C-alpha cells in the first residue's frame, strides 16, 4: 500500500517509493537521505497541518506538512 507521509499511521515504517516534486525538492530531500529506496519510519504527525517527524538512517527529521504530502511511502 502506498501512502504519503501525512496519511501514514504513526509508528509505521516503509520504503520511500517516490518524491512528488521538482528537482530542487528531490535534491533537498536527498541531502537528508530521503531518496527512493530508503527505509523510513513515521514517529508522529502534528495536528492542524503541523510537521511530520520521521526517522531516516538513524536520524529524526521534522518535515513540514506540504513537503510530507509529497513524500510517497510503500508500507508493507
Amino acid at each position, binding site marked *: 500500500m502506498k501512502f504519503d507521509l501525512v496519511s501514514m499511521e*504513526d509508528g509505521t515504517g516503509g520504503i520511500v517509493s517516490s518524491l512528488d516534486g521538482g528537482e*530542487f525538492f528531490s*535534491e*533537498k530531500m*536527498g*541531502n*537528508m*537521505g530521503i*531518496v527512493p529506496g*530508503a527505509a523510513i519510519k513515521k*514517529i*508522529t504527525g*502534528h*495536528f*492542524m*497541518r*503541523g*510537521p511530520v*517527524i520521521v526517522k531516516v*538512517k*538513524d*536520524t*529524526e*527529521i*521534522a*518535515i*513540514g*506538512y*506540504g*513537503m510530507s504530502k509529497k513524500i510517497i511511502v510503500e508500507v508493507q
Partner: protein
Amino acid sequence: MKKILLMGNPNVGKSAVFSRLTGVDVITSNYSGTTVAYTRGCMRLGGEKAEIIDVPGVYSLSAASKAEEVALDMLKEGDIVVNIIDATRLERNLKLTLQLMSRLSPMLIVLNMWDETKHRGIEIDVPKLEEILGVPVVPVCAVTGEGISDLVGRMEQSGVSAFECDVKDLWAEAGRIAGKSQKFFHRHHTFLETLADASITPLTGIPIALVVAAVSFKIVRFIGEGLIGYVFEPFFEKLWGPFIVKALAFLTPGGLLHEILIGKLIDGDIDFVQSMGLLTTGLFVPVAMVLPYVFSFYLVLGFLEDSGYLPRIGVLSDNLMHRVGLHGLAIIPMMLGLGCNVPAAMATRVLETRRERFIAATLMAIAIPCMAQIAMVMGLVGNYGAKALAQVFGTLFIVWIALGLLQNLLIKGDSPEIFVEIPPYRMPYVKVLFEKVFMRVKWFVKEAVPFVMLGVLLVNLLYALGVIEFLGKLAAPVITGIMGLPEKTVAALVVGFLRKDVAVGMLAPLGLSVKQLVIASVVLAMYFPCVATFAVLIKELGWKDMLLSSLIMIVSTLLVGGVLNLIL
C-alpha cells in the same frame, strides 16, 4: 600560511573541534546552524603557524543553497580539509565525505562523538575505514578533548583519496562503506530515547514543553533573585557604598564632579537605583541588577541548547509560527533574543528567505525584550505586583502576535516549511556548559558596562546642558499627548538608544504612576533597538529593509502607547 578547513554536516561538532585546536572560545550547541559565520583561528602545525577555518555545516556540495555555494568557494582555498563526522551517524555523514573526496583536496577524517558510539551499540572498525577511503581517520571526543593530540599529529598525513566512487548514487556507496566498517549491537531503548519520542509527540510533547518553560522561568528567577538579594545588593549596600562615600569625601554634594560620579543624594544617602552617578547607578545597574539575571538565563538556555531540547520547541511551535509567516526554527532567534538581541539578530540567518529573516528580525527587535531590560522591569515594575508585570509582558506578547499576523499578510515573498534534523538528547557536559555561560556573561560585561556608564554620563551632561528639558518640550505632544507620560520621560527614551536597562532604571526617580510605568516599559522595549542591535540589524537586513523595519517600530510604538494610555 597553510589553510585548514573544518567541514562536515550540521551539528557534528565542528565548532567544538575548532575550539580544541585553536583555544579560541566559540559557542557550541546541540542543534544545526549554531555557527552562521566563518570563524577563523590559528594553530601550530609542524612548527609552522596554520590558519583554521570553521565552516558552517552543509549536507552536500551541490551549490543548491547559499551556504553550500560559499562552502564550495572555500574549498578552493583550503590546503587541508578536515572532514568532521558524527561517529554515531556514519552512513549519513559519509555522503558529504564522498563528495569532498571527489574534489581531490588532501583530507583527513575525524570521527567525533566517539564516546557516544559505545552507548549506542555501534562499533566502527577504524583501520578498515582508513583502508577503504585511503585517508587518515581519527576518532575523537571534542568536548572532552580525547583524541585531539592524535588529530594534530596526523594532520600532516592528510592525503588525496584514491577511492573510486559511484558518483551517481552516493547514498548507496555510503551505505556500502558503512556496512563494511561498522557493526551494530542489540541494545534496549535508552531513557533518553523514550523521552525523545515523548517530547516530540504533540499529546505528551506540549505538556512537557509547558512544564519545561515554567521550570526554566522559576530557575532563572530563583538564581537571579538569589544572587541579587544575597550577594550583589549586600555588596553594594554594605561595602561599595560606604567605601565610595569615604574615598570621595572631599567632593561637595551638588558640585559637578559629585553629580557625575556619585549623583544625587536621596534623603542624604546614596540610592543606587536613583542617584544616577557613574560609580553608583552606573555600576549598580549592570552589575547588581542585570548581571545575575543574565547569568541565570544563560545557564538555563545553555542547558536547553546542549541537551538538544531547543529544536523540539521549534517543532512543537511550528503551527503558531506559520501564522506569523515563519516556521518553527525561528523560535531559536526569539529565545536567544531574550538573552540579548545582538546574537539573536545574527541567528536569523538560520532562516532561508529574505521575507522570513525580515519578519523574524522585526518581531524580535520590537517585541522581545532582552534579559537586561527584563531584569530592570522585574526590579522596578515588579514592586507593584504581578498584575503590572503581566501587563508589560502580556502587551509585548500580543504585539508579537499581531505584528506577525500583519507582516505575514502584507510582506511579499516565500516562507518555506520547516525541514530540519532533530538532534538526539545528550547530557550536557558541565564544563562545556559553564564555559559557554561565562563566555556570554563576559561578553555582556564587556559590552554592557561601558555603554551603561556612557549612558549615565550622557544623562548627566544632557541634564546639565538643558538638552533634556528642550527635547521634553519638543516631544511633549507625543509623549504626554498620546502616551500620557511626563515630559521628563524623554531622557529615558534618549538613553534607550544606548542601553535599554539604564533607560528603564531612569524611570525610577520620575515618580510615575503604575500605569505610566507600565506604558513607559512597553514603549522602551518597542520603540527602537539599542545601538548594538541596530548596527547588527543593518548588517543583516541592509539599509532599506532596516528603514522599513524602523518605520514599523515607530508606528507600532505610538499605536500601542496610545492604546495602553486609553485602556489601562
